[in-house]
């Protein structure tokens, strides 16, 4: 089969599990120029095809899996893909980018994306091998761990098949069940595993034979790829990330007072050195692993044991977020225990962030007397109790006993329990907050509030990077603001600040971050704070792949388009400015740690929201205006939005 276009196929596969039919669509190539892939292409289909009153677990919800115009090309940073749907956890958009291997493999099979719709009558999995698409029975896989399912599918279809699956937790419709790609890479957030489960879908296995994506300028792309490879060897940030991965952040963040500890009560953790990446490497015989064609190789593969806890290499190792939410935020200072709980989540298909945060909510409520032994079925909750956490993870995945309540997520569980327990659920729009304390970086708080997927730390770069003037030091090591100069961000802004200058910084950074989600590009290879590929180099990469005479301006508009499309999707589902909130705790002083006593100024936060809506071209209720939608070249979204939103009173 000939690839018609440089960088992409122009082919979208659609599989209907209700009818058992598969079909291929060939959209206008301009669709790829306007949306480029990932989150934007997913939203293009979600906005048009999923009615606003659709339930997240109904057959009418659609799973949209998308690659981009750079996925699968031979350079570090490109192997991710997007999965999007309505979230069972929040009711708003679920949108997640996952690294690993599956996205490139789908591209090698000759598709840019896959839309899964309907519901199978009995458990199934989808098998794709180039033009052959089969819906096959999965009754014998149902109930098995992710590792067992991967082994079974590789035995059936060969060792080279790439598997994107939910776990037993997804089958049980746990609201924060995740998806795993090759057991070590995840669509962690938003409960996409439960959407799989609701469709009786256990896995999508892919193998493709078109292993070289046609691109416009392979010679220049190779030069850029080699520049990056050299950076991994000699660049301070890139080489550190290669050595320790995201786990490198635990100790520094604790010293700075912004490591969530004891359910966000404190900002520094006495056990930070024990659970930090440096100790994890020593304790757990750490090795590095890679995603497809990436020289950064920042993933961990660990093994070891301590007391009752064992860790194997099969499921990788915990990232920064998992270490925080299963470690410091639960008061756990044993890295082997943290890694074992992480592995159990991966085996059962649970998001480690929401799992840890929901248990943290229960521990604090129990400590405050808001939960009783009668509520918990006799389970005694306390901090630094990893054995208990391990049991609870199994109970959540199986929806057993008190685990059935926790499986609904912290917001729903708190609403069920009442007694004021809601104030200890650290979530936004129903999604539990990740491992970043916003009282020391207020822009992260703004990001939590306005994120279209609920509490999320990947809306923009974090404030501390931009508090000092930019200073170029070496080719691979520019500091702070230097890399943002091409978009006109020149002035440092304090971390604890929500002035107009901070909101402007946030808005521009959000465009840049959204662009990464659209291109399915890994932030660890190309965003300013990692001092890797520059924005101008990323622009060149898109041009090398597609042959388009593109520009940074065009790419930033693609990012902005994605943010506003996501907002429109949520507005159509009834979300408004009233949902852009933070837990009350963040307006109260931190109890302990390096930033003890620090809090977010509520008036500054509320003013920042208004400024943000204004800068985005949204109305005071946070709804995209017709004018901004037209300016972004997506006037068609207004036709959908205006019919589903009451006029402003």
């Amino acid at each position, binding site marked *: 089969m000939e690839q018609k276009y440089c960088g992409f196929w122009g082919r979208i596969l659609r599989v209907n599990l209700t009818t058992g039919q598969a079909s291929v669509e060939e959209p206008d190539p301009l669709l790829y120029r306007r949306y480029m892939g990932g989150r934007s292409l997913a939203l293009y289909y979600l906005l048009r095809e999923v009615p606003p009153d659709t339930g997240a677990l109904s057959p009418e919800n659609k799973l949209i899996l998308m690659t981009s115009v750079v996925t699968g090309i031979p350079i570090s940073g490109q192997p991710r893909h997007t999965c999007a749907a309505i979230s069972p956890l929040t009711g708003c958009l679920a949108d997640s980018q996952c690294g690993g291997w599956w996205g490139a493999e789908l591209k090698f099979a000759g598709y840019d994306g896959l839309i899964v719709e309907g519901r199978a009558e009995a458990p199934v999995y989808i098998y794709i091998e180039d033009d052959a698409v089969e819906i096959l029975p999965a009754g014998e896989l149902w109930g098995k761990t992710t590792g067992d399912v991967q082994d079974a599918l590789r035995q059936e279809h060969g060792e080279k098949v790439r598997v994107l699956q939910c776990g037993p937790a997804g089958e049980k419709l746990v609201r924060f069940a995740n998806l795993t790609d090759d057991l070590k890479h995840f669509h962690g957030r938003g409960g996409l595993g439960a959407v799989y489960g609701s469709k009786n879908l256990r896995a999508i296995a892919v193998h493709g034979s078109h292993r070289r994506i046609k691109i416009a300028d392979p010679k220049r792309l190779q030069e850029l790829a080699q520049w990056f490879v050299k950076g991994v060897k000699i660049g301070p940030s890139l080489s550190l990330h290669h050595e320790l991965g995201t786990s490198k952040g635990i100790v520094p963040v604790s*010293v700075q007072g912004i490591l969530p500890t004891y359910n966000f009560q404190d900002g520094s953790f006495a056990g930070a050195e024990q659970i930090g990446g440096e100790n994890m490497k020593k304790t757990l015989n750490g090795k590095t692993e890679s995603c497809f064609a990436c020289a950064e190789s920042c993933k961990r593969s660990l093994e070891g044991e301590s007391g009752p806890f064992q860790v194997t290499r099969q499921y990788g190792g915990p990232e920064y977020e998992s270490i925080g939410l299963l470690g410091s935020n639960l008061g756990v200072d044993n890295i082997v225990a943290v890694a074992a709980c992480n592995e159990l989540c991966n085996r059962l298909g649970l998001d480690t962030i929401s799992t840890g945060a929901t248990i943290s909510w229960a521990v604090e409520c129990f400590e405050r007397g808001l939960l009783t032994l009668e509520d918990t079925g006799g389970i005694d909750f306390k901090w630094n109790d990893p054995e208990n956490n391990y049991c609870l993870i199994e109970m959540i995945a199986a929806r057993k006993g008190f685990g059935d309540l926790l499986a609904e997520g912290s917001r729903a569980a708190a609403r069920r329990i009442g007694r004021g327990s809601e104030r200890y659920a650290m979530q936004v729009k129903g999604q539990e907050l990740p491992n970043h304390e916003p009282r020391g970086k207020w822009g992260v708080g703004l990001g939590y509030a306005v994120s279209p997927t609920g509490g999320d730390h990947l809306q923009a770069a974090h404030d501390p990077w931009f508090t000092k003037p930019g200073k170029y030091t070496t080719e691979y090591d520019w*500091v702070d603001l230097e890399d943002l100069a091409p978009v006109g961000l020149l002035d440092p802004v304090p971390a604890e600040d929500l002035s107009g200058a901070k909101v402007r910084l946030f808005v521009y950074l959000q465009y840049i971050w959204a662009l990464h989600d659209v291109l399915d590009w890994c932030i660890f290879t190309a965003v300013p704070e990692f001092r890797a590929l520059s924005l101008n180099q990323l622009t060149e990469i898109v041009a090398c792949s597609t042959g388009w005479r593109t520009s940074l301006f065009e790419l930033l508009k693609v990012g902005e388009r994605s943010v506003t499309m996501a907002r429109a999707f949520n507005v159509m589902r009834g979300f408004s400015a009233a949902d852009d909130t933070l837990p009350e705790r963040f307006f109260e002083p931190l109890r302990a740690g390096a930033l003890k006593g620090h809090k977010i100024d509520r008036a500054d936060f509320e003013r920042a929201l208004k400024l943000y809506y204004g800068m985005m071209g949204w109305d005071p209720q946070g709804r995209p205006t017709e004018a901004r939608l037209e300016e972004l070249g997506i006037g068609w979204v207004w036709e959908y939005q205006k019919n589903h939103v009451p006029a402003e009173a």
Partner: protein
Amino acid sequence: MHVTVKLYGTLRRFSLPDTPGIWSGEIPPGSTLLDLAALLGAPAEEVAAGAVNGETLALDTTIPPNAKIMLVTHVNGG
């Protein structure tokens, strides 16, 4: 005055060759945390925070004798 410093983030590259993440040596009495960073060769812009004996302190803090020191860069998770 002899000190031992644990280095985190990109400051790890200023470790002694045989002790990854650790530097130890003599510094002039009265040195601050920033003076220490400069002695190691670390750019001031790169030093985000420092701790002395487990307590995070301002970077212009004078280092007391026999202190256990940590210096960190801005590092995010993700």
